[in-house]
């Protein structure tokens, strides 16, 4: 079983979810939560890792962490989000063997997607915490305070991460 950190298990304030206000969602059972949250959790992990295989791993680990104490978690979606963030940030820190270096193939997605410009590969190459902050801010639509809560840092730190991330994207394009 994957270790569960306190920060993952600790209750978090309700946070709006991209797919809807998950603070209102109380899943009747684990299976329902699993079926409904698998895709959003995988997608979030994918945006943060830029790697489909790794994202699947991270998403599964998040659910393994959730299953044993699902009954003690009031907000599974928030728990999963925080769990994904913790695992993604921890991947490099712990230098886990499963980490797969990002390559062009990793950030590529099948098909010709009109909105997918070169921002996406540049995003995927940002430093880990900057990328995570940008995904939470601009994909999950969390405000700075909420991002700080999920990442376990100060609001000012998040502002700085987002600012530097955007700045780097601008400079990379020049």
């Amino acid at each position, binding site marked *: *079983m*994957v*270790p*569960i*950190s*306190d920060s993952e*298990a*600790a209750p978090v304030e309700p946070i709006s979810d991209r797919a809807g206000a998950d603070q209102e969602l109380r899943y*009747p*059972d*684990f*299976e*329902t939560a*699993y*079926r409904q949250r*698998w*895709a959003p959790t*995988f*997608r979030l992990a*994918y*945006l943060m890792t830029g790697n*489909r295989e*790794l*994202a*699947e*791993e991270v*998403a*599964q680990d998040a*659910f*393994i962490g959730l*299953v*044993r*104490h*699902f*009954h*003690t978690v009031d907000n599974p979606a928030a728990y999963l989000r925080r769990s994904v963030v913790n695992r993604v940030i921890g991947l490099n820190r712990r230098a886990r*063997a*499963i980490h797969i270096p990002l390559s062009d193939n990793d950030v*590529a*997605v*099948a*098909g*010709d*997607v*009109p*909105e*997918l*410009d*070169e*921002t*996406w*590969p540049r*995003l995927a190459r940002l430093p880990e915490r900057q990328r995570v902050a*940008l*995904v939470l801010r*601009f*994909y999950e639509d969390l405000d700075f305070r909420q991002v700080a809560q999920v990442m376990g840092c100060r609001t000012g730190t998040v502002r700085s991460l987002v600012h530097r991330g955007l700045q780097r*994207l*601008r400079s990379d*394009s020049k």
Partner: protein
Amino acid sequence: MTIRPTHYGDDTSERVRRSLAAAASAVDVPEPPAVADLLTPLAPHRISERKRLPARWLLGVAAAAALIGGAVYSAAPNIDVHVAPSGRPGAAPAPTSNVPANPARNVPEGRGIGPDKVEITAPAGRRSPQALRNLVTVAAAEEKEIARCMAARGFTYTPLVTVDTPPPTEPPNAGAQRYNLLSDPLPADPVSPLLATNRRHYDQLSKERQRQYGAALTGGENASRSPSGFATGSCIYQARVAVYGPSEGSAEGDQQLLKLEPDVGDRVVRDPAWLAAQSRWSTCMRKRGVNVATVKQLFDELSSSELKSAFPHHRTCTVDSGLWSVTATVQTHYAAQVRREKATALAAAERRQQESLTRARRILGQKEP
């Protein structure tokens, strides 16, 4: 994928927003594993174990052959396979593997592709039914210990795995499911009703008792942690120690070690004979209109729908190019090589696993067989 050039102005954040939304909607979402698999952490087919394999594409080859033969096939990559020589001109050369033939498992002529008889013997790393039951035994003991620990702290916890829980199984079409080729419903979920029982108990507690319950189960806010990352005061950690003993932190690592991964996979895909066979496979695929250079590329870069179309060709080319038989041969060779090189570590891991099983049986009140 076509990547359009970008010029950033003041709308960088909006571009980020659009780009993330586009990437999220474009990525293929894989099928989730069965719920029960989340609770049998050492189950052989857990994604987290499969995905750590550096040679995932090997599984594609093996899955193809399993489909050809209609054989039930384990996800473990260190399979021993044997392709019977067909005698057909131009067919793959007979392997020099020393894996003994098993005529009983021969696929009848007329099945699969042409006259080739694809024979799949029991994989070396594949678990026997007893080994799979042992996984349940260990998980059930862990759950029982969690319940005992929680009870000692004044809480009720219903074990999510018991000795009656069906052992994990690999469905016959698992290879196809892994690549989203089929959309079978998930297996039945035996866990949710038990979780609901725990939830009912939890909901009846006051807020303060709920906090205490969480702390008892997973550890408090500032709990000290074991090297494996578990809060040492938590019932989950104590259950692990009770079952895995001093080797608590190495339980999952041992499992990986005993699968001989990643060593075998890495060596197989660097083997000259394997690379030559892959080259023939690529030529065969291109002739059939699938422009891929490597098997890895096939599985990593094609979308689910493209892969579904390409799979029949992959199946044919895998056999016709000899890739399947070469994989069998070199894999057997390198598995033996790794076993020799890591004999001491493997023996130690096996011993630790056996000790865990013994402890688990003792916890469950079972006799040694």
